[in-house]
């Protein structure tokens, strides 16, 4: 039973990994992470009694330089960059610039004069003093009072404050992206025909020694997480997707190329285990239609022995009556639904479960030896 669980976890881990890559790609394309961060910073620094400081932080050269283009907000702002930019934005309020216009017949000369304290800590203090009394002002005043006139301490205090906030923001982001992840998981399940109920049946039957193969793969993965296996058998659905990826890899966009390469490698991993997934005539729901028309998949693929065996099993289930066919369809839908739900948990979750199960399996082997030794001694 433990082997079945481990096999399941490995399958879910591999497919969740695929979902994660697709989600990251989607986030990158839609700039959703950057927009979420932008809104979070805005709400942190929006001071109705003074200014929308968040907007000013984003237009600060330090943060502005992190943008990919003038449409894409940065996906990540380090606490150090944030603290420097924010201190400067507040400090800038104390700078006074005046201009002198010298108009001549030829044109105009504008001479700016800047009144500015060159000490950034002092400038920050003067900037805070110039603000109207507000919650943000109280907070900033507390920061500089705690800083003992040291810019580094002030920066550290603000950086810690930002990091704490970002930890909460990460949580909000995860919650807000759950729906999108589920949709992507569903699309993966449909495109690869990931039917959990069918996978369970195959694992319980242990076709082609699949369970042992998966358990050994799981052991290998837990020991060296980056390891790859050679592809033992090809899966037609995955091969088709990989072919599309291969054709798309000529794209000029380097980021797209990176994601396509990651997808390709993830699909290689999945393919290496010969998982019972994909749109094959011997798997539900294709098998239902093959049988309905009375056209045996076995006859279509006489040279594919694995297929013949699997197809005949399916025929036994679906050939009997229409009531059984409906049940099979419902089971397939349930299988897809379960897969969607499980894949949306994410690859890290399944990896943790996998590690725990492997540890239990390893721990379970020892008493056997101990018993044997005891018996030998007696």
């Amino acid at each position, binding site marked *: 039973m433990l082997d079945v669980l481990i096999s399941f976890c490995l399958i879910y881990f591999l497919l969740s990994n695929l979902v994660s890559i697709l989600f990251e790609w989607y986030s990158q394309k*839609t700039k*959703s992470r950057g927009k979420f961060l932008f809104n979070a910073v*805005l709400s942190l620094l929006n001071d*109705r009694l*003074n*200014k*929308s*400081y968040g*907007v*000013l932080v*984003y*237009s600060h050269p330090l943060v*502005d330089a992190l*943008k990919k283009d*003038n*449409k*894409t*907000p940065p996906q990540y702002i380090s606490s150090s960059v944030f603290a420097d930019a924010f201190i400067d934005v507040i400090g*800038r309020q104390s700078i*006074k*610039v*005046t*201009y*002198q*216009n010298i*108009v001549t017949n*030829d*044109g*105009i*000369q*504008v*001479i*700016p004069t800047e009144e500015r304290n060159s000490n950034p800590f002092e400038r920050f203090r003067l900037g805070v003093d110039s603000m109207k009394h507000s919650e943000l002002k109280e907070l900033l005043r507390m920061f500089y009072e705690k800083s003992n006139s040291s810019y580094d301490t002030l920066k550290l205090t603000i950086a810690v404050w930002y990091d704490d906030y970002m930890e909460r923001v990460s949580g909000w982001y995860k919650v807000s992206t759950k729906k999108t992840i589920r949709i992507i998981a569903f699309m993966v399940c449909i495109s690869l025909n990931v039917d959990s109920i069918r996978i369970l049946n195959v694992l319980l039957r242990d076709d082609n020694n699949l369970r042992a193969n998966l358990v050994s793969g799981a052991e290998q993965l837990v020991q060296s997480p980056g390891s790859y296996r050679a592809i033992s058998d090809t899966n037609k659905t995955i091969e088709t997707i990989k072919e599309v990826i291969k054709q798309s890899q000529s794209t000029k966009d380097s980021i797209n190329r990176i994601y396509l390469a990651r997808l390709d490698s993830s699909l290689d991993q999945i393919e290496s285990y010969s998982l019972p997934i994909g749109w094959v005539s011997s798997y539900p729901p294709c098998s239902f239609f093959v049988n309905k028309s009375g056209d045996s998949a076995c006859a279509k693929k006489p040279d594919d022995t694995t297929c013949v065996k699997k197809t005949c099993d399916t025929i036994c289930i679906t050939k009997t009556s229409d009531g059984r066919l409906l049940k099979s369809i419902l089971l397939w839908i349930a299988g897809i639904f379960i897969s969607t739900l499980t894949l949306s948990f994410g690859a890290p979750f399944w990896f943790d479960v996998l590690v725990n199960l492997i540890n239990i399996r390893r721990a379970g082997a020892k008493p056997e030896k101990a018993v044997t030794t005891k018996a030998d001694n007696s």
Partner: protein
Amino acid sequence: MNINAHTHIFDSQCAPKDFLKVGLNIGDNTAALLEGFLQNKIGQGVVNALYGASSRIGKHNNLISRYTEFLKIGTMATQKDIFEFNEQTYDSNFLAGIKFVVLTLDMDYMSDSKNKPVADFESQIDEVKRLKQYYPDRVFPFLGVDPRNPRNLDFNNNVQSLLESKTFSGIKLYPSHGFFPFDPRLDQLYSYAQQNNIPIMTHCTRSGSFFIGNNVWSLIPDAPEAINAGYSMDGIYNRIQLYKHATDKLFKQNARICNLFLHPENYLPVLYKYPKLKLCLAHLGGEYEVLGSLNNNKQEKALFEKIYALEAATKTWYQWIKEILKTYDNAYSDISYTLSSGQAMQTVYNDLTSGDLPKEKVLFGTDYFLVEQEGQEMDIVANAKKILQGEFQTLLSNGKNYLFQ
């Protein structure tokens, strides 16, 4: 010295969340639908794809590419990005080195409080202050003033100091956001502006941005309080009643009701009190008013006639403005946005050459980036130059007197 006396660089964060209905000149329901669509990632992807496709095939005059261009500029990340996009366009064309009047707009009160902009007006002007530091002899910002914003109560610190430091070179009023130009709360501003020769730019066309909140009539009493200048307010008050009791659905829309704030007559109580005020009634009243019933566009002509029937008007806004320019020494107007209509520019050219429109009182301006809804800025400018011929250069250099004399 060439000056574009009328440009905007506010980004989407400076505008209320329901700004789209103004920006794209569409009805409330259509705006809500389109806004939902554009906030959706698929919608944004569609706009990007449409823009990419229309740019590739060079169809810059079709409706989609015009609106996507407008949205592309308006949704750039910062005001600096929007300014630099325009500056680079000019510098690679026949108006290289031109100076820009950048008009800030206080949009904090142009909608209901729940739709307030992400970037409030304070942060909008903060960004413009920095832009002035980057381009001191290229950018001449005007400070937006809305009498409803409490920041103006501290006139010395929040208005006067910014003008005295010459960070801001003038004042921008946008009455259709929900106030009358004769509002007594603006009295101190007018007094200071006249005394110090500070130019004021207003909005004087029936199109453009307007109050988009739910209850516009709450801003329009039957007899709004006015700067006491001895000017008879009967005509203004009568117009309010005509709109209030209009039965046609057309006049129940905010876009039409807000015309009450914009009428050129609203400036007469101000000019009666401050006759030397340097005031620019922008857009020459707009294309509709310049062409009136001679408009070749049947839809625009029909709308013009409907409005005139309701208001029982005897003269167009264009005629009002021409009279004001002739009466008051420091009154100006500009061709911004209206320059996108070739037919209107032909009328303006005829009036400039005949002397009916005082040529030293008309400024060159484009209304960047709002004019992008009508076509590419430089195409529009080139077309206006062709029509206005020698007068074009006069308009370009009039800005110097308006700004610095």
